[in-house]
Structure formats: structure tokens, C-alpha cells
């Protein structure tokens, strides 16, 4: 099954429940990739609107150190000139 017929991959996805770790874990990884982008987008937006790290951390449910450590070094902030 090295070479997938057209549509076969879709069927694989549809037919396999996430009880299969191979698919379930890949789905979680995709979700994490999505979450990281949405978080970066929201944190940058909040900072641009003048929110403090404390306020952002409160909403994300993490410590302000955690959110600062993760985002203070962000590069090329798209709203900062």
C-alpha cells in the first residue's frame, strides 16, 4: 500500500476510528499545530491592544512567567513598527 489510489487516503481517514493510536495521535499533533498558531495570534493581538502579560496569562490559565517566557522573545511582531 505504498502508493495510495486517489481517494484511498480519505477512506483511510474515514474508516479508521481514533481508537487507532496512529491516527489518533496524528490528529492530536495536527490540533496542537493549530492551537499554537491561534495562541500566537491572540497573544500578539492582546499585546497590541495593551494587555499586560498578567492579564493574558490569566485568560490562558497559565502563569505570567510562562506566557512571558514563551512570547516575550517573539520576532517580527506584525503590529509593532
Amino acid at each position, binding site marked *: *500500500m*505504498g*502508493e*495510495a489510489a*486517489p481517494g*484511498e*487516503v*480519505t477512506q*483511510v*481517514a*474515514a474508516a479508521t476510528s*481514533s481508537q487507532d493510536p496512529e*491516527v489518533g495521535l*496524528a*490528529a492530536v*499533533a*495536527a*490540533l*496542537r*499545530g*493549530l492551537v*499554537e*498558531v*491561534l*495562541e*500566537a*495570534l491572540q497573544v*500578539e*493581538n492582546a499585546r497590541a491592544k495593551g494587555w499586560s502579560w498578567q492579564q493574558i496569562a490569566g485568560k490562558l490559565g497559565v502563569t505570567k512567567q510562562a506566557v512571558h517566557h*514563551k512570547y516575550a522573545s*517573539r*520576532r*517580527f*511582531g*506584525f*503590529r509593532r513598527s
Partner: protein
Amino acid sequence: MRVVQWSERTHRVLDLAWQETARFGHHYLGPEHLVLGVLRDDGSGAARVLEARGVDLAAARAALGRLADRGVVAGPRPSDAELLGMLGIDLEAIRRSTEQAFGGMAVGWAIREATRARGRGGGRVPRTPLGEPPMLISQALQHAGEQARALGLGVVGPELLLLGVVTDIRTPWPRCMRTRWTRQLHASVGLPEGYRGAAGPLLQACGVDLEELGAALVAALGAGVP
């Protein structure tokens, strides 16, 4: 340094190579797909050089299929959109709504921010469903450009692209391509540990002598051996 451009034909080969990734259920573009892309683009000098060595599209596809069975490259996998769909998440709807709310530039920035390699411990995520599938052909492209400059050519056609692939096979990857981040990226698209492009195994499975192929491509470019 002289700027090297891609020919229209090279752009077409890239498009065709992407089509081949879909055929194999791959969610990355590797040098092995470039070989198939070259073969799909009938009539180019590069395709003729390969065909003269007994490599045709059917044989190369079969060889890549066998490499996937052996685990040298990834097997067919569901796409991120399909995986998220299983969780009830509509990836396209999220893409649309975030781009509407924040603009494409901001989303592009957030993708780079979330996936960029960091000094310690690699990136947060190697890749995101909102980004493009990874192109793991940087080394082949760099070699193609270098060969173009060495031969005094300003445009990279399929011959030079294939020559870049052949040079890449015969050159160890630099340190920057063997970081934790690249390992994570490779794993995230289902590639085995130690993957460094599968064009070499693919061409070898087709019985190609790489040294001779490289020389034939240089000859086809109508220039002396660099």
C-alpha cells in the same frame, strides 16, 4: 553573486512533483518527488537523460511505492484537514475566520512564530495545519543554484534541478539540517529517523549509476564538466 532564476519548466516540474506527493499520500515535498516530477514533464532534457537510463515514470513510481512499504519514506497518511475533520474541526473554516479577523499577514506571522526553530529545545511545533506542507528540498535547490553558477547559467531548468538532486544525494547534509527541529519536522510528516531525502535509494532501485547520471546531465547542459 549572480541571481539564478527558475525556468517556467522548472516551476511546472515542481507542480507535478506536488501532484506526485498527493498520489502517495505524502504531506511533504522531497527530492524523490522531484525525480517523479521531472519524469512527468515529458520531453525535457532531464527526462530524456533518465529515460535513456531505463528510468520511466511507471518504474520510478513503483520504486517509490516499494520504498514506502519498506519504511524508507512515509507511507500514505491522512491529511491534517482529514485528521482534524475526524475531531469535528473544520480546518478551512478556521483558516477563513482567522484570516478575516486578523488578515493574511498576521496569520502568516503567527505560523512562522509558532513553528520557527528556537535556540534551545527546538520549536514549539515543527509544523502547523495552517501552513503549507514542508518542502524538504532546500539542499537540492541550493546545489542546483551552485551548479548553475559554476556552469555560468542564469536559469535553472529541469536538467539543473535533477543535477542538484544528484549532487545532494552525494553530499552529506550540513549540520543545520540535522537539528532536533528538522528531526521533529521529519517525524511530523511520518518520515523515519535519519531521513535525508530518498532520491538516492529511488534512483539506485531503478539501477542508475549516480556518477554517470551527473556527468550525463552536465553533458546535456552543453557545458564542460565543472
